[in-house]
């Protein structure tokens, strides 16, 4: 198990998952998965469709019970009181069509242990912030899909949860509302809320998440800080943009055309590091460099590479790199 659990107590983690397994008949949905989510971080759960992400989330929320393994949430086993501290926005989500917006929110807030008065005040406040204050008496069926999505998000954070678990939070939202939700999540993080986010939108993960867990076929294939994961997949190469004959640079064994037609990807020869190449370029007058960066792959590329290839080997490689660091 490549976790830090041995060095820190369970109470330090918002979620502590140890060797959980879940079968549905002959199908192994989750296979001995370990991970922890630190308090106050944005943690991303990644994986292709059917990888087992939703099953893991449902086990965390005690909707499903694991066949084996242990789960601790907010410092202990999940109780009704703990559930009241969690906000959950599932991927398969909806609301009662013929119920008015405010009534719906009051009901869901009450189910989280809030008093009618408190939930009403909080709901009206959030509805105003989300631009829905004119729709408090509208029925859910009268709202657009995007507006319904916003009401669902409000319902998730209504009770000021300590742990937020959201599945595809940006699906169906336009850029303005995506930004609204994104700002809200940053704000909640700043207030100390732990956020677990499952999404297919890799750029959101790159931008927002502190750490990630990638699942494929029920098994953990990548786990760790987002930056480290990307670094681990970085090739011995640099991306440059500017003028000069890149093929004659000492230490460059191959030059590949970049994605935008202006940049070039310089594959380095063994024994040469990006620092060596940068020093060479800086000392030569016949090269003008406007941009120089490590050739770190995007999470999207890593995702395709890992899911398309051998997941176990991918994690072994990542762990080797971390160990070498």
């Amino acid at each position, binding site marked *: 198990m490549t976790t830090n659990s041995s060095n820190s107590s369970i109470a330090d983690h918002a979620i502590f998952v140890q060797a959980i397994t879940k079968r549905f008949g002959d199908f192994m949905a989750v296979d001995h998965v370990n991970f922890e989510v630190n308090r106050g971080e944005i943690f991303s759960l990644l994986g292709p469709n059917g990888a087992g992400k939703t099953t893991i989330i*449902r086990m965390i929320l005690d909707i499903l019970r694991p*066949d084996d393994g242990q789960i601790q949430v907010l410092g202990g086993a999940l109780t*009704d009181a703990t559930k009241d501290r969690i906000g*959950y926005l599932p991927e398969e989500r909806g609301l*009662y069509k*013929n119920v008015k917006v405010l009534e719906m929110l009051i009901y*869901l807030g009450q*189910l*989280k242990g809030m008093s009618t008065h408190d939930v009403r005040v909080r709901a009206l406040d959030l509805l105003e912030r989300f631009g829905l204050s004119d729709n408090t008496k509208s029925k859910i069926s009268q709202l657009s899909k995007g507006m319904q999505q916003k009401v*669902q998000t409000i319902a998730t954070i209504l009770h000021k949860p300590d742990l937020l678990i959201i599945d595809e939070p940006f699906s169906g939202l336009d850029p303005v509302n995506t930004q609204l939700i994104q700002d809200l999540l940053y704000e909640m993080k700043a207030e100390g809320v732990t956020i677990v986010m499952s999404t297919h939108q890799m750029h959101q993960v790159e931008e927002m998440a502190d750490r990630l867990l990638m699942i494929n076929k029920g098994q953990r294939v990548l786990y760790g800080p987002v930056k480290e994961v990307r670094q681990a997949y970085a090739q011995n190469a640099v991306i440059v943009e500017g003028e000069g004959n890149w093929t004659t640079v000492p230490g460059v064994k191959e030059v590949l055309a970049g994605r935008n037609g202006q940049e070039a990807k310089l594959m380095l020869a063994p024994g040469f590091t990006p620092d060596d190449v940068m020093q060479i370029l800086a000392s030569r007058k016949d090269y003008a460099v406007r941009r120089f960066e490590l050739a770190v792959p995007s999470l999207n590329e890593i995702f395709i590479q890992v899911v398309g290839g051998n997941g176990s080997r991918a994690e072994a490689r990542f762990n080797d790199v971390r160990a070498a660091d």
Partner: protein
Amino acid sequence: MTHWYQVFVFEIKRQFGRKAYLLLTFGLPVLALVIFGAYRTYESSRDDRSEEKQELITTTNDQQIGYIDATAQQLFPAPETYGPATARDCNFDPDAPFTPGTIKRVTQPKCFTGRIHAYSDLTVGKAALEDKTIDMLFVVEPNYLATGEVSLYTEEFNLATSDSSGLFTDFLLSSMLQNASGPTYDLLYLRLRQPSAVTEHRVVETGAEEQNEDQNFVVAYVTAILLGMTLFWGGGYLMQSVVQEKESRIIEILLSSVPARALLVGKILAMGVVSVVQVTMLMGTAMFIGRQAGSIADSLSDVEIGLGKIILIAIYFVLGYLLFGGLMAAIGAMNTTSREAQNYTAAITLPAISPMFFLTLFVEEPHSTIPTVMSMFPMTAPIAMMMRIAISDVPAWQVLVSIGGMVVMIVGALWLAGKLFGVQSLLTLDNALKLKDLPKALRSKS
């Protein structure tokens, strides 16, 4: 188990906010009462005579009646031969004190003057009928005293014909009683117009007496209908409510806050209340109108069901609803749409109402084999035992066996519904659970 109360309150509010429910539960009774009230107002304005007088002389129309007295004794002289019919003699003031002889005074034969006309023979009578002087012609046959035979000649039969026949019968009665004293006349006139009100008392093997079968039938029928309607409506609402959690995709949000069983308990109790309110409103309105119209007052006026039986019936009512509600909820949890779920409901409702197919047997032989077995088998017990309890005394051991069996099955039904409503609701969001996969689904850990 927390939060069931919030679910209960919300589900009741949600159901009461539905137009279809409000229309059926409150709109329909109000409409029926308005129509009934309007009909009664119309009826009373059409006839300005007092109800009391109408009860003494049966008529609501102004048809002219002819008759021929063919008896050898000439038992029925013409009304006018009794003297002039003055308003003082024949009018009935409902506000005046009702003294002995009042009935004789207002119903004496001369008071029929102007409505009933005597004819000497059939030829003359028929001529009067043909020229529309009279609307109908009665012939009191020669053998009347021995047989009571009266012939009626008329051009067409309608409701008024029947009404006028009643008036002629009143005339015959008052003519035959005219020599009786005032108080005797009053008693005999009223009694002979309704000579018997039969109450049957069945002597069973134990020597105990049982109630009138007509009353038993009504009581058993009303009891069975009450539970049957509650089951259909309450169970239907519950099933719909469970399916809707999946159709609306809110189920996972709810399950992250509320355990499946708490959700289910809240829903079962709410739908029970909702359907009891609905059944009470509809049945109450029907009973009220029926009683006002006089159609069921006689049947139920002297029905006596002891407190013990009422408590037992209430217990079966609750147990029956929990059993069938639990099963309906399980069906809802297995299916993805209300339409799919409807296909399975017959498997529950058919056994539930099957005792009603044997209603006559339950009324006539409540302790025979079929009623006894049905009242102890959990699926048929609620309606079967309620009917038996309502109309007879059921041995205590049979009640205990029946309740025990039902409690066991209720626990099983609620466990099944809870199991399916939790995990399976999520796993079958898009595809209904097939019956062959049910055992595997129940074995899964949740």
